[in-house]
């Protein structure tokens, strides 16, 4: 029923969406500039990217009201590419990222998000906040003394002004006030204009100036793959945050395709790869944005502001941007996760900390998430593997013994399973009742095999009871359920 909701998606909340779009556009300007600096490209590249990502995702995205633009998570992944191969390769990588993301959308890979646990997500968010903060360091170390009071003053405006006035974006006030001070007093501060070119016109369509061959592909592919992964991850994560805040649902696979289309267009318009932004999306919802119009308006306002005010934007002191980015970093960090370290299960905390640690060390969010997912998978297997109980009872004459197995038998618990049997005991007959257990994989079957063979070698007759019930889980997966005796054969040879 997407069609029936279309008008509501766009025009259900016009006033709120336009206002929120304006607030978001104002907040996007410093961020887009700051992220361009992280990636090592002209502010122009991030600003064009933010414009085109926002405008296109407004049409193609699966989550109305979510803001996509140039982001820190993506910018951090392109640093080496830009440094070693240059800007044109970044555009090509952006386009390729979009293609792979669309592919992921068509393959419905969005549903793989379920394997990313809560702890990994918290780790991702915290790592992102830390990286955004660390990215401000070059502007805070070895700079003129005037920078520090300026940043402090900026932060004071950002945090204290909303207590008095709630209808003017406080980051904007911070930027205006700091720019005014620096210009009137004539402070010797680095400004946005010192960092590279700002856009003076609308973006134009251009083909990346690169040789189209395998070598190029091999250069950009690894970057495109990590960009795809991180971009979709942050986008889907943000989508579920917006889902929660607005108490509505979104189409995750459509979002993947939409991100892809937005990145393809962005690459051709001379922008860097982007994705959904947690902070900006929260600001949008907080300011009353709900529909697609809010995202669209944010992109359009951004471009209008930047093209119209280009000369003024160049004079913004970096100290003002640093203050805004510190706010973004603080707002992104999940502060409750620190307190939760004490109350949450230790395995969850380890997953979270491992994710943060790997990201901060490698500056690569994809690596951190992979490690986090791996850890949570291992912890889960370990926990479930403990749910095994093997009890036994001997017959009165001591010649027969029955083992009863309950619980989950798979690779992580097969060792426990095997070691629970006493092969030293001399028995005429052994009965293994597995009807109340589940055999999940080949390791489990092999372990049972091993036990049966060992008892046989000791000269005992072995009977396995209830294997059919126990192994339906694996039979289903291996698609041999049409052969009713397949596993019986396997376990009695």
């Amino acid at each position, binding site marked *: 029923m997407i069609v029936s909701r279309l008008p509501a998606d766009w025009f259900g909340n016009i006033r709120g969406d336009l206002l929120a779009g304006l607030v978001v556009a104002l907040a996007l300007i410093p961020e887009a500039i700051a992220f361009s600096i992280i990636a090592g490209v002209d502010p122009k590249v991030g600003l064009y990217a933010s414009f085109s990502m926002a405008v296109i995702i407004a049409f193609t995205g699966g989550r109305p009201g979510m803001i996509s633009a140039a982001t820190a998570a993506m910018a951090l992944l392109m640093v080496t590419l830009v440094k070693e191969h240059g800007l044109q390769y970044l555009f090509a990588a952006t386009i390729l990222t979009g293609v792979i993301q669309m592919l992921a959308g068509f393959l419905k890979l969005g549903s793989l998000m379920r394997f990313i646990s809560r702890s990994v997500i918290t780790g991702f968010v915290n790592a992102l906040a830390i990286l955004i903060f660390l990215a401000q360091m070059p502007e805070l170390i070895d700079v003129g003394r005037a920078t520090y009071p300026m940043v402090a003053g900026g932060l004071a405006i950002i945090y204290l002004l909303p207590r008095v006035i709630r209808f003017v974006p*406080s980051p904007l006030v911070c930027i205006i006030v700091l720019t005014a001070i620096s210009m009137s007093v004539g402070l010797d501060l680095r400004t946005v204009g010192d960092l590279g070119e700002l856009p003076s016109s609308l973006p134009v369509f251009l083909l990346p100036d690169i040789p189209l061959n395998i070598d190029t592909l091999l250069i950009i592919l690894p970057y495109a793959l990590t960009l795809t992964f991180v971009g979709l991850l942050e986008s889907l994560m943000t989508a579920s945050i917006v889902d929660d805040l607005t108490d509505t649902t979104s189409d995750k696979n459509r979002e993947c395709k939409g991100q892809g289309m937005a990145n393809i267009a962005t690459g051709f318009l001379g922008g860097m790869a982007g994705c959904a932004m947690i902070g900006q999306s929260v600001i949008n919802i*907080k300011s009353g944005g709900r529909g697609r119009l809010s995202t669209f308006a944010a992109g359009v306002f951004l471009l209008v502001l930047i093209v119209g005010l280009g000369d003024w934007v160049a004079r913004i002191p970096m100290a003002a941007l640093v203050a805004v980015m510190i*706010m973004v970093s603080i*707002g992104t960090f999940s502060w409750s996760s620190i307190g939760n370290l004490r109350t949450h299960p230790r395995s969850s905390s380890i997953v979270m900390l491992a994710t943060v640690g790997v990201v901060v060390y490698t500056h690569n969010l994809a690596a951190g998430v992979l490690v986090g997912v791996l850890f949570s998978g291992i912890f889960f297997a370990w926990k479930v593997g403990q749910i095994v109980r093997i009890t036994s009872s001997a017959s009165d004459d001591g010649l027969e013994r029955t083992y009863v197995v309950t619980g989950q038998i798979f690779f992580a618990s097969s060792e426990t399973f095997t070691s629970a049997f006493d092969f030293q005991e001399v028995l005429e007959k052994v009965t293994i009742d597995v009807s109340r257990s589940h055999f999940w994989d080949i390791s489990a079957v092999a372990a049972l095999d091993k036990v049966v063979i060992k008892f046989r070698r000791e000269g005992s007759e072995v009977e396995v009871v209830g294997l059919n019930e126990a192994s339906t889980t694996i039979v289903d997966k291996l698609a041999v359920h049409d052969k009713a005796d397949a596993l019986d054969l396997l376990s009695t040879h």
Partner: protein
Amino acid sequence: MTSILACVDGARYTSSVCEYTAWAAKRMNASVRLLYVNDFHAAEGMDFDLSGSLGASEQETLLAEFTALDEQRGRLAQKRGRLILDEARNRLTSAGVANVLTRQRHGVFVDTVIELEEIADLVVLGKRGESAKSTISPHLGGNLERVVRASQKPVLVASRMFQPISRFMIAFDGGPSINQGIEYISQMPLLKGIDCCLLMVGADNDGNLRRVSAAAQTLIRAGFNVETRIKSGNPDDVIPSEVAANNIDLIVMGAFGHSRIRTLIIGSTTTATLRNCRIPVLMFRA
């Protein structure tokens, strides 16, 4: 057992929806499910914070704030829905309908109706819902067209005032929708024994004559007393004037046969009929 899905929303059409539902339920010996869709949007209309700043753990604070707000409003909306449903049920039971269920659901109105109509044989709703701001304006509720377009079931659109149905008119255009409607009428007891006026707006030629008489035959075989008529002119004018001239109490028609885009430019006979005739319309869409 046949079953009717009746949508109430507390707007002015609710009472006539109940009366037409009771009428239909008794004629078809049907059970009734009364539906109220609780369609309030999260944190709608609150005083938003445009400060554009992100506090520490903004997301958690915001979620707590929205939840608290929605909780209050949700509770109120729920209570209101319950009252509306209770009143509607009382009307139906006192009108002699034995089997009445009430359902209150969260969600988008159209989607909810489509989801629940699966086991229904008839959907009843008012010409204008709560969301159409004023009952005086000639504009129809936006939900109506969406429901009719999406629905697989016949939709009875209730007019403001209930009046007993002693004569109904079939606005016949020979299309698949109205043919499906004629089949429904011949098979279901809803309109059995009521005088039928079969009107075709179009040229008085052999082709039209043949199609009208074929339709009439179906109805006569089903035991209807049918009067056929072919009139030339613009259906938007002919249908209302025929309705007035013949004391018609209900129109049966195929609905929204054209695409949304054509409707946007040329307009729709369905919309014109709904707007100009102050009687209920039973719509089919094949």
